[in-house]
Structures are given as C-alpha cells and as structure tokens.
C-alpha cells in the first residue's frame, strides 16, 4: 500500500518519531523498526526514512518478502541439510527446526526479517493504542487456505484460544503479549474474558492487562504459526496452511519434503521453487554434507567449521544476532554470592579479546548486560576495560588474597565454541590469580543443571527486543532466571523501559537497566555471536536469519 494510505492510518507516535528522526534524535534504522512496529508497512517506513529499502518489495502489496528478482529462474528443488524433526503441533514446537519445516506451509501474523525488522505478514497492518494495552490487527484479504477456505479472524481466534488453553502447554503463554491476555483461575492461567474481540472477518483486537511493546515480534515467535480452524494434531496428518508449499512426506530423522501447492493462488506473490527438501543431518555433519554436494544449503555451521566452509564452493551467509553465551553466576551460591568476587572475575576478563579469539569474523562484543547492539533500544555504555589489578584487589578484599579456584560447567549446547570461550576465560583469569576449571559435559546433561549450577555457560537465543530477554531471564523470580538475580531497583528500571514505546526514551531508560546489570556483574557475556550458513553459488537470495528461520519464498536456483 502506498505512503498516503499509510499516513492516513498512521499511529500518532509515528509522526512524532518521524520528527525526531528528521531532527536527528532518532536514527533512521531505529525509526524504520519503530514505525514498522506500529504497523506502518516496512516498505513505506523505509521510504519515509528515505532509506533504500533493503531487499524488501516496494510494491503496493506491502509484502514482507524481498523484491522479485528479474532474472530469477522458476522451478527447481532446494535441498537443505537440517535436523528433521516431528511436526506434531505447531503451538507446542520446541525447536526452530520444527518450525522451519512448517514455515512454508503455515504462516504468521507478522514476519521478522533477516534485518531484525518485523513486518506484517498475514496481517496487513496493525495498530496499537497509545498505552500499548490494546492492539488491533487488520488481516490481509484474499488469503486462502489450501482447502479453499478464506483466512479470517475465526482462524486467528481459534489459534489464540488454542495457545491459551492451559492443557495444551504451548510455550506461547510465556510471551509477554499472550500472558497479558491471561488471568489466574483456580490455579490455572486461562484466557481473560474479553481479551480478544473479533471486530469483523478481517479485524481483531487484543486487550492486554499491561502495556506490551513486543506484540508484533511475539507473533513471529516460532510456535505462533497460524493453523486452520479445523486443526487437529498431529499436523503432518492434514497439513492445511496458507503458505506456498504443502507437505509431501515427513520422516523424522530422515527427510521432510515440501512441494508447491497447486490450485490456489498464493497471496504472497511469486514463489520460484517447486520443492523444498529438508534432509536430516546433525549440526556437525551439515557442512560436510554440503561439501559432499548432497545439499544446496544448510541450517547452520559452527564457527569452528569456518575454515572448512571458506574452502568450499559456496556463499557463506552470516547473520548478526543477539544469540549469546552467558557465563553467568548464580548470585545465591558461594563464592558468587559475594558481589566483589563476581566483579573481580568480570574485571579480569577482556570480552573483546575473547570474542576476537572465538568469533574472529562477524558478531558483536557482549557487555555483560545481555542487550545486543542490534537491539533497537541498545544503549552504548562506555566500553568495558580489563583491569587485572582491580580484580586482584577486589578478590583480596573479598577474602581471597592468594587466588581463588572456581569451576564452570560447559554443555556446548550451542556448539563447541562454548568450551573455547571457557578456555579463553581460563587463560585470562590466570593473570588475576583465579584458577578456572572447565567442566565439560554433554548438552543433555547440561540442560539438567543449567539453572542450578553456581557457574555455568548457558546459551540464550535471539529475541528481537532487548527487553524481551531481560524480562524473561533476569526479573526477580521468573522461571528462567538462572542467575537467581533479584534486584527490585533493576526490575523497576526494566518496567519503565518496557512500558515506554518511544525508542529514544526507552533507550534512555535502558542505560540504567544495562548499567545496574553490568555493575552487579551477574555474568560474563563476551559474545553476541553471528550465525553462519552456507548456500551453493547456484542458490540465489538465500537469507541468513538471526534465529535461523527459513523463508524461501524468493529463493531460486540457477
């Protein structure tokens, strides 16, 4: 849709933001996100920002996908190496891979692109109330299910009701947006009366208990794919979706074959590929599978395989993400209950060096507060300085004048680089008289203790907004708070940030949030790692996504 259409329905804040941008308070990219958040078609937003719209269609359809490639070739099958898992119930998916298998069949209301910008997908646009407590979604018209039905609010309602059904156990209820629609009833969290109002076939409004900023992002969370109102698990039995592809065969641990749906006209414009074939390979073997020419592209390869990848004939596609490794302390356990000890350890480590060592190319240096530079509300605190002397002093003060021996549990849940980080830390801590024992265990073992061990290296995945992670992981008493960090002051600061829509203001709030967390030294977080994937030269437009989500609508094979 065109700019003026948009401007008509512009959220008041957008105008504000635009002004800010023009007056240079708000940098352009931030504006784009911000606008897009509030329902301006990303294309339009980019236009308003006077930025070249990266790979996103300028056309009126306001499609979330990249622009059509004039010399694209139709047809062909894309072979991808990825773990092939079961497709029981999209609402209870626990792995990205699962969602990727359905991602071309089922689609989401929104779509967070490789550029970490969230755009409308099955929704045409959305509006948020000023207090961010009510969100209105306008569904895209003319979207058809594979069985010919129209995609309507009925489907959306059906899905939300499923997600919020306590017996289903969908992890969606953990999303701030959804949780804000729930209320406690006899021990169970159930959907609040009137939380969802269906306005018409293509308009639906959500009324939230508290302001939620990340609604659109939440809608692209991997278990939020929308299923047909007639849905019964397991999905693989009758895969009805709105996407361009449908399921041919899914053999867990072996292959998952998708082919283009015939008969219905896909809303999302041109789709080049005829087939998408996922072949099961473990993380370790995906690159070798690519090397041996079995597949055209892979899900991911680890940094330790970079040299190998470089030597192969293909395009390495890195994606900047907020995926990270938190070598976090449990602040309730000795010796880490002593803030000085934590600070000493943090001081003794040079994050930049560690990152340099582990992820030479791509990625960002972490600053021990779990907010990544690619997060919109990231506030750049002064760079951390390594201070061995200071560390020693603190240790002495804390009662360890002649050094300290600690052990870190490493599960390599996200690849052997965890271990490399730990080893690098070990080498640096030596200088401060701290002996670090690296206790490596198999991933499955680590998951049994990740929230119990006093000092452990836990991987956190990418989330579009910094606030999302922080409230998930560090608020007092939340289930995933592995640090057992409980600081009312900080919680308050986070609340403030979260309820602020204005990115600039929020960023300002974030300064405090980040600072407190950094000073309390609850973790050593050297790296926001890039994710790497590789595609054959013959494959065009293969996207590298921060959360490894696959969207191959505009991918084509020469």
């Amino acid at each position: 849709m065109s700019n003026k259409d948009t401007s008509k329905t512009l959220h008041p804040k957008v105008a504000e933001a635009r002004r800010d941008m023009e007056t240079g308070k708000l940098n352009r990219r931030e504006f784009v996100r911000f606008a897009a958040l509030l329902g301006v078609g990303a294309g339009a937003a980019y236009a308003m920002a006077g930025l070249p719209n990266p790979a996103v269609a300028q056309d009126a359809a306001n499609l979330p996908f990249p622009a059509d490639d004039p010399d694209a070739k139709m047809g062909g099958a894309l072979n991808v190496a990825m773990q092939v898992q079961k497709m029981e119930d999209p609402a209870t998916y626990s792995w990205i891979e699962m969602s990727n298998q359905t991602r071309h069949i089922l689609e989401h209301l929104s779509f967070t692109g490789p550029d970490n910008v969230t755009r409308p997908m099955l929704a045409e646009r959305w509006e948020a109330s000023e207090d961010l407590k009510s969100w209105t979604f306008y569904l895209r018209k003319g979207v058809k299910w594979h069985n010919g039905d129209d995609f309507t609010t009925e489907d959306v309602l059906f899905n939300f009701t499923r997600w919020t059904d306590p017996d289903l156990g969908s992890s969606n209820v953990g999303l701030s947006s959804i949780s804000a629609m729930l209320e406690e009833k006899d021990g169970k969290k159930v959907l609040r009366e009137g939380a969802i109002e269906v306005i018409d076939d293509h308009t639906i409004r959500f009324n939230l208990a508290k302001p939620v900023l990340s609604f659109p992002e939440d809608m692209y969370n991997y278990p939020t794919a929308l299923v047909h109102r007639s849905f019964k698990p397991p999905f693989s039995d009758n895969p009805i979706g709105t996407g361009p592809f449908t399921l041919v065969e899914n053999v867990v641990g072996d292959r998952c074959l998708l082919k283009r749906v015939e008969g219905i006209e896909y809303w999302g414009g041109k789709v080049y590929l005829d087939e998408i074939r996922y072949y099961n390979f473990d993380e370790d073997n995906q690159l070798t599978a690519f090397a041996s020419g079995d597949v055209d592209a892979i899900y991911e390869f680890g940094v330790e395989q970079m040299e190998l990848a470089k030597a192969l004939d293909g395009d390495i596609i890195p994606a900047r993400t907020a995926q990270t490794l938190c070598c976090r302390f449990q602040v309730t356990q000795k010796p880490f209950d002593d803030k000085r000890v934590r600070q000493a350890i943090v001081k003794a480590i040079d994050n930049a060096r560690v990152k340099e060592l582990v992820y030479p190319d791509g990625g960002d240096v972490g600053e021990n507060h779990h907010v990544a530079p690619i997060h919109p509300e990231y506030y750049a605190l002064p760079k951390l300085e390594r201070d061995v002397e200071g560390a020693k002093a603190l240790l002495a003060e804390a009662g360890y004048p002649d050094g300290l021996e600690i052990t870190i549990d490493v599960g390599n849940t996200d690849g052997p680089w965890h271990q490399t980080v730990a080893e690098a830390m070990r080498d640096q801590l030596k200088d401060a008289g701290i002996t670090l024992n690296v206790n490596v265990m198999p991933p499955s073992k680590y998951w049994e203790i990740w929230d119990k061990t006093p000092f452990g290296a836990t991987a956190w995945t990418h989330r579009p907004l910094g606030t999302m992670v922080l409230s998930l992981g560090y608020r007092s008493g939340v289930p995933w708070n592995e640090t057992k960090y409980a600081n009312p002051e900080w919680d308050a600061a986070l609340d403030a940030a979260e309820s602020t829509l204005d990115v600039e203001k929020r960023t300002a709030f974030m300064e405090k949030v980040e600072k407190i967390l950094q000073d309390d030294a609850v973790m050593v977080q050297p790296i926001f790692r890039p994710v790497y994937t590789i595609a054959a030269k013959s494959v065009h437009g293969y996207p590298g996504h921060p959360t490894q989500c696959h969207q191959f609508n505009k991918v084509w094979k020469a």
Partner: protein
Amino acid sequence: MAVTEIDAGPSVLDRLSRPKPLIALALLMWVPLTAYVMFGGRMDGYADTVLLPAVPATVLLYVLGVRAFRESWVAVIGLSLVFFWLLAAVSAPYLPLLDPNKPIAPFVTPFSEKRDVFFWLGTDFKGRDMLSRVIWGCQRVIVWGVSATMVAYVVGALFGLISGYLSGWWDEVISFFANVLLSFPVMVLFIVILNYLGPSGFNIVVAVTFASAPAIMRIVRGLALDIKTRDYVFAAQTRGEHPLYIMIFELLPNVRGPIIVDACLRLGYTTVAITTLTFLGLGLQPPDPDWGLMIRESAKTAMLWKFSYMLLVPALAVSSLILGFNLMADGLREMSLRD
C-alpha cells in the same frame, strides 16, 4: 623328534618375569604415569616431579625388553612402537611442547610457521598445536587403555579360574552371565554402560571390564579345564589342598603364559575401543587432548584435502600404537611356540 629334547633355557615367559628388576622397572614406569594421569590435576606442582623416575625406567625397560625379545624381530618392532609412545607419554611434561589446550593460530599446516611459532604437525581448528596434542593424548589413551585391560584381566581370570576349576553350578551361573554379556555386541555394551555411568576414564575402565572380562573368563576357563586334568593338580588334590590354593598356586601360574599373548592383543582392542568411544562422544571428555577426540573434532572441521593432516595425525598415531601391540603379540606367540 630329537629337537624337542633340547633344553632351550628359560622360556620367554620366564625370561620376562624372572628378573625381578624388570618388574620393578615396570612398576617404576607405570605407577607414576597412572598417578599422573588419574590424579595429576589434584597434585598441583608436584605432578611433574612425580613422573621424573618414570623416564629413565622406561628407557631401561625398553632396552631389557629388546634383549628379551631379540629372537623375534617382529616383537622388537612392536616393542619399539609401543615404547615410542610410552616414552612420549612419560616424558610429555619435559618435552619442549606448546600447551596442548592453548589456541594459537588455527589451521596451520604441518612444518610451517605462524605467529613466529613453528608447528611440526600444524594446528587444529582451534589453533592448538597438533604435536603436543598427539603426545599428551597418548598419555591418556595408554593409561586408561592399559588400566582397563588390567582390571578386565583380574576379573576375567578370577571368574575363569572359579568356573573352570570348581565347575558345577558355579560354572553354570558364571558362564550364563558371561554369555549374557557376550551376546551384547561390544559397542552396545559400551554405549549402554557409558551412557548410564556418564563418560569418564574410570567408567571406561568399568565398561571395558564388562565387555572383555567374559571373553577372558572363557579363555582362562578353557585353560583351567585343561590344566586341572594334569597330574600335578591331581597330586595337589590328593594332598588335600584347598581349592583356593590349587587355583592360585597350581593353576594360575600356568595359565599366565598363554594369556600374555592374548593380553597384548586385548590391549590393542581396548585402545581401539577407547578411541572409537571418544570419537562417538562417549569416551573421555574434552578439553584435554585425546586421539579419539582429535579425530571427532577434525572429522567435522577438516573434511578437506588441505586439512586432512588433522585427521591423519591422530589416525596414524592410534594405528601405530595398536600395530605395536599386535606385533608384540605375534612375536611373543612365535617365541612361545618355539620353546
């Protein structure tokens, strides 16, 4: 025929086991090495000094070994291969090696220089020196391999003697459980046990014991069954000796001979098993170097001609060690057949 009448002096076995110094030396080499690998972490500082006596002991042992084996060049070659690694193992701390866990510069090809360090065998994907990894790795492989085999033998021989000599329902029961274990494919057994106990050197010992003790038990049982028909056992029985005495003093010493050959072979198997298990991710855990681990890591980071050295180095290392064991076994068999 006339030849058999000749007294060829003491048998290989005697020559190996009679001179007490030989045994003493063996202990002098083995105990520190084991201690070093198993508890080295816990004896900070002293660790290296512990190994000091082992180095000369190993060298001396090698010389004596060569003299004992001189008649069979096969055995000598085998011995040399094994002792090459043994020597590497005991002297690792004193060799001018880089820290095997310290990343320096990744993917440096062998015999080349990077960051003004010369790498004989290049570096792995993390930039750790292959040479020092191989040498430090052999320490663990050897120690765990040999200890595991030893334990397996003690257990196996014990049950073998009991079921062989006492027979009756002892035999029935023991043999049955031996069969149960034997009818698992070895790998299943390893995988299940290590899975259950969690991967670690000590658990490997347990697993290996479970896996090979039954086989050993069978061998010993067979030998015992044969030996117990000899007149000297008969004599002991008619002397009213206690079965335990007969097992330990009459049977055991004569079982020893045939078993030594088998032991060499089994050392080979165990080493293979350990490497394989680590390769499968069940064995010794990173970060410390280990051949199987090196293979595992390289297999996914270096599947490429120009990096193949990362695969070849550990592969060749483990092959040479096992070749050593097997050649030794062959030589010993040859010699024991001769006398």
